[in-house]
């Protein structure tokens, strides 16, 4: 086996193969980054709706809760399949990348909505009440009072969710998005040894994910709002 690996290695590191892998790595990263950023925005909106108290908005709030609870309990692969086939009906010419991006967005929204909500709840109730006493409306309260305190709580878990999702996007290869796992399958089908190809793909995922994970840990330590009030 080792001799076979040594024989294949020079050919495997040819220009086109390396470019394929690098482009695929970029797509993996883009899928997760764009999807999670969009998800964070929509998730923020959902969390905002959930802290409102108007009677009129009860059905909207119920819909938001249902959405969040539902999408956190179905697998990414199944979401991907549903979105894929719904796009077949709605818009025939959408690229698979868009399909995967939508699925990432749907899942990321539900998870980040929970993260943002727990961040907003981490701010002391008295701050909310004080803002209300000052006659600030919801948007003003969030922007001037709550967010400056809550973003430190929200950002680290949101970031670690993004890193977690880099790995989950491997499933997007199932609908044909040319990301890292798919590139690995292509190279394997070209005849390269599976040990070489998938070992390389694993290594690339590690190279992407590990520094980001370290950065996440660093961020958690340095932004960390200690409950003893040192900061």
């Amino acid at each position: 086996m080792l001799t076979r690996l040594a024989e294949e290695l020079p050919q495997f590191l040819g220009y086109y193969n390396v470019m394929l892998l690098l482009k695929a790595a970029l797509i993996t990263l883009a899928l997760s980054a764009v999807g999670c950023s969009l998800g964070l925005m929509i998730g923020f909106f959902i969390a905002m709706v959930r802290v409102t108290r108007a009677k009129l908005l009860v059905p909207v709030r119920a819909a938001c809760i249902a959405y969040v609870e539902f999408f956190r309990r179905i697998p990414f692969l199944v979401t991907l399949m549903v979105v894929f086939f719904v796009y077949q009906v709605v818009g025939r010419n959408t690229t698979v990348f868009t399909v995967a991006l939508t699925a990432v967005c749907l899942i990321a929204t539900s998870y980040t909505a929970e993260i943002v909500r727990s961040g907003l709840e981490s701010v002391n109730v008295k701050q909310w009440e004080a803002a209300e006493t000052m006659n600030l409306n919801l948007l003003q309260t969030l922007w001037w009072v709550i967010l400056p305190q809550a973003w430190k709580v929200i950002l680290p878990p949101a970031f670690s969710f993004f890193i977690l999702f880099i790995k989950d996007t491997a499933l997007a290869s199932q609908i044909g998005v040319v990301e890292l796992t798919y590139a690995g399958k292509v190279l394997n089908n070209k005849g390269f040894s599976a040990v070489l190809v998938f070992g390389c793909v694993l290594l690339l995922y590690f190279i992407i994910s590990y520094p980001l994970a370290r950065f996440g840990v660093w961020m958690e330590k340095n932004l960390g709002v200690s409950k003893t009030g040192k900061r």
Partner: protein
Amino acid sequence: MQYTLQFGQVFPYLPYLIGGAWISLQVAFLAFSGGMAIGLLGAMGKTFGGRFTRGAVGAYVSFFTNTPQLVQIYFLFFALPEAGILLSSYEAVLIGMTLNAGAYLTEIQRAGFISVHRSELEAAETMGMSLFQSVWYVIMPHVVKVLFPPLSNLYIIMTLGTSMAAIFGLEELTGRAFNVNAITFRSIEIFSLTAGLYFLVTVAASLTLTLLGRWLFRVKAKVF
């Protein structure tokens, strides 16, 4: 936009799908139990071990938590045969999920170990307990309360994670959904039904875990 949803064609396959959900739960349970054992050893190694053990456990954890489970199973399934190790799809999925879970559970259980006070360990040592005894009688009962919420959370995530077994031809819930899709071609219906089943299965698992936690360990955890 000319597509009429016809759930009627899909519903006869409901018992077949529920059977698949049962297999999903089994796989998740087996992988979780195996992962717990690995995680316990890993956490012990990382907390009490020497430099070499700590390094090895650290490498294992950061490798498995920083690469996708899917590709890990791909490696087991497609690359190991080159070295002469032939795994069936069930074995490959189970081993892959167990190793992956072991890495996450090492981290979770280590956090639990850290939450134990040093003086309690010293007291256990004074009582003449061995390492395993002090883990079992002193650390475990104390740690279970801290660890129950993240553990049950991971169990749910793993139940969802079993869906990737379908890619390797294992006929669990998603795998059976692919089969029914191939028979009926009602793709949207079948996959949204599958999503609903996953929702029900995980809610049931959460409920069971919460009740178990209340009964056995007096942990106050919420389902939602």
